[in-house]
Each structure stands twice: as structure tokens, then as C-alpha cells.
């Protein structure tokens, strides 16, 4: 029997996979030098050319290696920060991972093949290449394959073990490029900023003024909104309201223009209405309407909806979702896909929810005829299905946060498999003088998915009396109302995620980290507005955060194409290039060189105009 070495990204996945492949009976051995990683030994028949094998299933703990500068460049004062764009770098096993690397080398020595079980995403692909390197150091002739899986449900894992694929080096290269760029650009700018700005203020004494190519645009969004709120000036507007009393119902007609900012104009318009005396019904639209059930759940959506409805920040949500995935309750929570593959047996997944106290009956009703094939969105990352529950879990087995996230994932999934909510909408449009007004009514007829997806609201409005097309009537009242514009609110986390997503800052996997980073660095603070159930968490920049963005904007003011580092443009270009590496249309070295050249130019410029940054720091921070 040949020996096979399997390596997962985390110990929990290794254990879960070992459990399924072995049918529950495996031996556990410790790994010298690391408390978390274990080796699980058992036999398994992989089928095909492999057949029955002795298996050692182990894991790493995320990335094995780190990219670092050569020793002579490591100290902060060893070289001008700009030298870091060219300084030699090398990949080395992280000091706390040497025992894990040694374990892989040793295990590889006796193995015919290495099967990689890292998560199926870009980072996982890169970690796979790190594992492969260590295994080949132990055994140069070892064969390498990869398992493709997106959850740790038994049948899925068994299927993955029997249909192995190749490691995707293109994706791994994209990650390697990103790592090198982040290291060089981040270190160069961070050293420059810290060395130059720290002496200016006592507030900076114990801090690092860091720069990251995602971090900064993320901060830029927060500051931009903050300034819009701060600088906002309210203005008065005026509008026309028309009221009709009919069949004992007060019908309010809304102005098609909503409101205008010129009182004289509105006064003239109202007078024209009054002169006309009667209003004429120009449209009576009564039609069936529906509120669409949600799309299958993606990571970005989970983070946005989660922070809105579950009152948890995006990083916590991702940690909890990660835990639920590792325990095998939900599918892989990092996905851009919002369409279910036809091969997935959705009804079976619905059936698994039967035991639940709260939505079990709903799930039964779905299979009794209510089931609908989910809507398909336009995204497919070709790696993972939308986030969905893999099996039912008793609430007693979950922590409070896990319960909330699991419930959301299940309700969302059941909603996807349900019928849209149905209703009847009525729209009446009238012409009165030269102005157009309308009134709308909604009658909800069937709630359908709304019964399980408690996060959406759609309720019947007041019912409208009968109107005939072409009839005329004299409105009971028509008058001017006024109001005032209000400032936008400070940015909330879901809004920030949406902005980052739309502007290509970070990936679904890293957005939450970038947000956490700008909080950690004290560039932004979280403030709670309102109280109780309506409390909203807002992101507000600190003086330091404002100073950095203003300083940088001044550094780059007047340069063609507005390359300020607080804007999303540069990062977006970099992300596009990463995708090109993944697609095979660009090679890693070329992309790294090009991006470094671009950032080096901005670095030189920043260095030359560092006084603009210093001025901003002096303006906002005590010295």
C-alpha cells in the first residue's frame, strides 16, 4: 500500500476531513514543536490510480513562509526608506512555523504523493505552493495533487478526495505578487511616514504611522464622508401637497418634482394649480407586483447584511462564519458566487432543516410544494458555491454569536428557495394645473419568503379609494410645505464595505481586516448613534486620520490624474493586474515591476513634498 500525505490549511479542517475519510477511526500523533498541529493516520481508498492507501492527514496554520528584506535592510535606520523598492527580499519559513515545515518534510519522505487540502481561494492556492515546496525538500519525487472542496460535509469531502485536481500556480503567483508589493510599498511608506512625522507630536510617540495600499483608501472613504457631514449646510426647500377626501379616506398626492429650492417658483406653480381648479386623473395603474426574494449569499452580502441586522462588525461576522464552516455547519464563507450550481441538491439541504423549532415547519412547507429554484446572480468565482447551511445544528451547540450568524445563513438560504412575495400595487397619477402628482397604494397578498426572511420588510399601505381614468375632481386642499435638507450620516460599516467592494479595495476575504486595521491604528473610531434596537455604529476619523488624508491630498494636489493615495484608483489598478495574473494574461514579474515603478514615483514625490504632510500633522495634532 502506498503512503499519501494530506495537508490542510487549518487543524480543524484536517481533523474534519480525517474523520470523514477514515469513517471515524484514526490515530492521532503529536507534532514535535507545535501544540496545535496533529498528524491523523488512517487508511482510505482514493480510487483511480491511487487505490487503497495509508494516509497521514496534517495541516499548517495559514501561510508557512514570510517574505522579508535581507538582514542589512531590516533595521529602520539601515537605509533610506526608498531603497526598499529594490532591496533584496527572500522567502523564509516563519520562525514560529519551523516545526510544521519540518513535519511536512519528514512525512513527505515516506510518501508517494502529497494531496493539498487548503481552502479553495487565491490565498489557499498560495499556501498550497508553500506546502509543496516543503514536501519536495523532503522528497524531490513526490507527486502533488489538490482536493477541491467548499465545505466539510461528508459526501462532499469524500467526493473531493476521489476527484483530485492540479494546484493553480497562476493564482498562487498573483498572491506572491501581492505579498511582494504590499511588503515593499507598505514598508517604504510606513518607514518614511513614521520617521518623518513621529517627532512632530507627542501623540505619535508610541505609534507607528503605517501605510497600506488598501488601508489608506479605506481611511479615505471614512474621512471623505466625515468632511461632507462636517461641512454640510442645510437649505430650505418647498413643495406642493395635494389632499383629497374621498369615501372617508384621506388621499395624499405627492408632487412629481418632490421639492424645489426656489420659493417663488413653487408659489407660481401652486397658483397655476389653483387657477386650474380641477385635477384630472391621467393614470390608474393597478398591477400585480412582487418583492423579490434575495439572491444567494456572498461574503460581501453576509458582511453588509450581518452588520446591519445582527449588530456585529464585519470582522466578527467573518470569524464566526469561519468557525461555523470549520465545524461543518455552513459552506465556505468566502465566496463571490451568487448562483447555485445545478448539481447541488438544494431540496436535500432544505430537508436537513426539518428538525428546527423555528423554521423547520417552513422548510417542510417548502418541500410540500413551495420550493422554487433560487434566482441566479451574475457572479461566479468558479471556486465556491454561495454561502449555505450544510446541516442542521441544535442552537444549544452554538455560542450566542454563532447562533445569530447561523440563523441568518439558514433563513437567507430558505428565502432563496422560496417564492417571491406577491402583492397588488395601485398608482394614481393626476394632472393639476401644469403639475403632476401621484398616490401609491400597496396590498400584500402572499408573504411567501418574507415569512422566513424576517430581515426584509414589505407591508400593505393604506388602501386607495376608486378612481376612474380621465375623471376630474376638485382637490380638498393644495398647499405649500417646506423642509430642510439634512446632512448625510457618518459612514457605517456596511456602507464602507459596499464602497470598498464597488471600488475594488481588498477582496471579500480581506475587507474586514482592512477595516479592523484602520481602527487598530487609531485612524478611525467607532461611535454609536441612537440607542436600543435602532442603534447604529458609525465610523468617525480621528484627528490623525484626518491629518493623514488631508496631508496626502495636499502632497498630490495639482499632479495630473489625481494620484492621491487616499483615493481608490491606484489600488484598483493593482487588483485588476492581480486578476490578469490569475487569468494568465500577465506574468508576475512584469506586474510587480510595473506597480513598483508607479509607486516609486509617488514615493519620490511624497518625499519631496513631505512638508505638506508635516503641516497637516501640526494642524491637527498637539506638538
Amino acid at each position, binding site marked *: 500500500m502506498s503512503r499519501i500525505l494530506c495537508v490542510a490549511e487549518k487543524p480543524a479542517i484536517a481533523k474534519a476531513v480525517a474523520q470523514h475519510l477514515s469513517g471515524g477511526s484514526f490515530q492521532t500523533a503529536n507534532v514535535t514543536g507545535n501544540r496545535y498541529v496533529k498528524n491523523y493516520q488512517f487508511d482510505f481508498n482514493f480510487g483511480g490510480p491511487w487505490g487503497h492507501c495509508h494516509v497521514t492527514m496534517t495541516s499548517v496554520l495559514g501561510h508557512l513562509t514570510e517574505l522579508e528584506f535581507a538582514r542589512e535592510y531590516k533595521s529602520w535606520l539601515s537605509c533610506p526608506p526608498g531603497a526598499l523598492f529594490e532591496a533584496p527580499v527572500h522567502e523564509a519559513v516563519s520562525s514560529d512555523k519551523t516545526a510544521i515545515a519540518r513535519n511536512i518534510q519528514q512525512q513527505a519522505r515516506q510518501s508517494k504523493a502529497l494531496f493539498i487540502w487548503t481552502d479553495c481561494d487565491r490565498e489557499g492556492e498560495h499556501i498550497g505552493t508553500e506546502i509543496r515546496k516543503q514536501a519536495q525538500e523532503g522528497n524531490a519525487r513526490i507527486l502533488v495533487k489538490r482536493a477541491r472542496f467548499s465545505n466539510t460535509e461528508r459526501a462532499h469531502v469524500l467526493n473531493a478526495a476521489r476527484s483530485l485536481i492540479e494546484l493553480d500556480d497562476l493564482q498562487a503567483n498573483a498572491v506572491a505578487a501581492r505579498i511582494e508589493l504590499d511588503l515593499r510599498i507598505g514598508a517604504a511608506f510606513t518607514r518614511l511616514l513614521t520617521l518623518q512625522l513621529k517627532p512632530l507630536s507627542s501623540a505619535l510617540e508610541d505609534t507607528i504611522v503605517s501605510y497600506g495600499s488598501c488601508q489608506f483608501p479605506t481611511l479615505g472613504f471614512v474621512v471623505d464622508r466625515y468632511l*461632507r457631514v462636517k461641512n*454640510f*449646510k*442645510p*437649505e*430650505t*426647500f418647498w413643495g406642493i401637497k395635494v389632499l383629497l377626501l374621498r369615501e372617508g379616506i384621506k388621499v395624499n398626492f405627492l408632487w*412629481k*418634482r*418632490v*421639492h*424645489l*429650492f*426656489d420659493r*417663488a*417658483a413653487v*408659489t*407660481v*406653480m401652486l*397658483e*397655476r394649480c389653483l*387657477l386650474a381648479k380641477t385635477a384630472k386623473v391621467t393614470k390608474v395603474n393597478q398591477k400585480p407586483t412582487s418583492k423579490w426574494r434575495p439572491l444567494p449569499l456572498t461574503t460581501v452580502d453576509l458582511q453588509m447584511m450581518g452588520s446591519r441586522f445582527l449588530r456585529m462588525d464585519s470582522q466578527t461576522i467573518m470569524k464566526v462564519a469561519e468557525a461555523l464552516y470549520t465545524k461543518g455547519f455552513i459552506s465556505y464563507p468566502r465566496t463571490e458566487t451568487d448562483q447555485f450550481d445545478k448539481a447541488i441538491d438544494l431540496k436535500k439541504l432544505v430537508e436537513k432543516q426539518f428538525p428546527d423549532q423555528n423554521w423547520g415547519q417552513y422548510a417542510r412547507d417548502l418541500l410540500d410544494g413551495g420550493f422554487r429554484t433560487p434566482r441566479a446572480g451574475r457572479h461566479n468565482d468558479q471556486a465556491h458555491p454561495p454561502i449555505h447551511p450544510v446541516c442542521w445544528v441544535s442552537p444549544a451547540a452554538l455560542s450566542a454569536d454563532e447562533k445569530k450568524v447561523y440563523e441568518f445563513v439558514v433563513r437567507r438560504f430558505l428565502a432563496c428557495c422560496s417564492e417571491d412575495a406577491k402583492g397588488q400595487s395601485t398608482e394614481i397619477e393626476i394632472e393639476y394645473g*401644469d403639475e403632476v402628482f401621484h398616490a401609491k397604494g400597496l396590498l400584500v397578498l402572499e408573504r411567501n419568503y418574507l415569512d422566513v426572511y424576517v430581515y426584509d420588510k414589505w407591508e400593505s399601505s393604506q388602501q386607495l379609494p376608486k378612481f376612474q381614468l380621465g375623471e376630474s375632481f376638485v382637490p380638498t386642499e393644495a398647499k405649500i410645505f417646506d423642509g430642510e*435638507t*439634512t446632512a*448625510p450620516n457618518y459612514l457605517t460599516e456596511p456602507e464602507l464595505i*459596499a*464602497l470598498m467592494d*464597488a*471600488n475594488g479595495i481588498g477582496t471579500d476575504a480581506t475587507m474586514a481586516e482592512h477595516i479592523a486595521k484602520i481602527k487598530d491604528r487609531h485612524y478611525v473610531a467607532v461611535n454609536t448613534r441612537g440607542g436600543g434596537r435602532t442603534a447604529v455604529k458609525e465610523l468617525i476619523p480621528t484627528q490623525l486620520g484626518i491629518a493623514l488624508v488631508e496631508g496626502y491630498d495636499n502632497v498630490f494636489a495639482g499632479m495630473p*490624474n*489625481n494620484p492621491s493615495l487616499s*483615493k*481608490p*484608483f491606484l489600488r484598483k489598478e493593482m487588483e485588476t493586474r492581480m486578476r490578469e495574473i490569475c487569468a494568465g494574461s500577465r506574468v508576475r514579474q512584469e506586474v510587480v515591476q510595473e506597480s513598483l515603478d508607479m509607486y516609486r514615483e509617488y514615493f519620490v514625490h511624497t518625499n519631496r513634498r513631505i512638508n505638506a504632510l508635516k503641516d497637516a500633522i501640526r494642524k491637527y495634532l498637539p506638538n
Partner: protein
Amino acid sequence: MTSPQSQMAAQMAAQLQSTRSLPVSPAWVNSFVSSSTTALQRNVPISALTQTALFRLLASDLRDSLQTNNPATLLPVDIFDPTVQERRLQGPVPVQVLDIEDIGTSLWSQLEAIERVERGEAVRGREIVRAVNVGDDEEEGAAGGGGGGGGGGERSRIGPAANDSHGPHRLIVQDAAGTRAVALELKSVQGISTAKLSIGAKLVIRNATVARGMILLSPDCVTLLGGKIENMDQKWKEGRKARLLARITELQGEGQSG
């Protein structure tokens, strides 16, 4: 007396009157003809020459180029009178635009839009893009936004989809005699927007309603001839941001005292 040149001038004036309702002053058209001697020598057809004259006319100040002897082609001098509930302006009256303002959008959002353009950005939904990348989408955005009829108020409007105005617009127009009036775009007229209509652009108004001193514009009573008065337009554009700021400041002052 009836030299070929003055005959030609008369012919052109008649042409501009009948096709564009522009009563050109004899002095202006004569000087135009006499300045076009090279064209005359080359036997350029009169239709082409009239076209050139129209182009110049649209770039001129109407107070210099049109006659003022027919009251029917002028605004009533008391047109601003707010005590007159309604009157009819038969016309056709050629006027030029002195100012345009979007009264469907708050001054503040207009200012924010100007600053975005200054930074070289545009907003497409939630996405912030470099304005150079926007290209043709801008036109579509404006057309789509215009149909929305005012949008959903300030709070939801993070930023206008394009750098064009929503309307309705309030214009200040001036006739050949220098009389000014306020015109209100009661129904959307194509070509009237802060981005598309230049200062000094010419309109011909006929059979329009004047209510409380405001001319009510709708597509059936306005013919947009276009054009601009270069120096006025440039000054207006340069000063727009400062004017918006000044008005906002003024409003805040009123708010505090009232």
C-alpha cells in the same frame, strides 16, 4: 443706392427673420457683409454666407445685433411685475441667457459636484471613478436621471450620477433692448441644463405664459438657437463656485437671524 452689397444684406436679413425669427439690425448686417469681401469675391453662395452670419449672430450680444423698433419682438418693459397674475407673450421674442440655475438641486450638492469635477472624479452609483474614464456614460446618466423627476431627496442622493443638472431651471434672459426677465422651465426643455446651455445662448420665445413676472418655458414655446457670448460665459463659469458659496453663506445668515 441699391448696391449689390446692400441688396445682399437685405436678402440675408429677410432670411434670418423668416427662418430664425431674428430681426437683424441693418447696421449689423451691413457691416457683416462689408467685412466679408473675400467671400464675396470668391462668389460664396448667399445661403452659406447667411449661415456664417447666423453663427456670428449667435455669438454676438443681441443688444448690438438686433433691431429694437418692433415692440412685438421685445419683452414688455414691466414684465417683472409680480402683481400681474397671468399674461401672454405673443412674440416671437429673441432673448439671450444671462444666468441659469438648477432649482431642483440644493446649492450644496451643486457645489459638491463642482468640487468632484475639480478633483477629476465622477461618481457612478457607489463607484468613484476618474472622470477621464467616464466617457459616454455621462450622457446616459444625465438622460436617465432627468426622467427620475427630482430623485429621492438629499439624504439618499450620495451624489448625482453625472455632472449635469436635474432641473427644473430658472433662467435670467435679456432681450435686444436690454430688458431682463426671469424664465422658469416649467416643462423640461431639451438643451437647457447648466452643463449644456452657455451664457449668451439665444432662445426665441413665442406664445408663452408669463405668470407673476416669470416666463413659463415649455418645449412648445421655446426654440433653442444655441450659441454663446464667450467672455460672459467664461466669467460665469469661473465665478460659479464662488457664487454658490456666497449664496450658501447668505442663506445661513438668514437662517440665524430669522
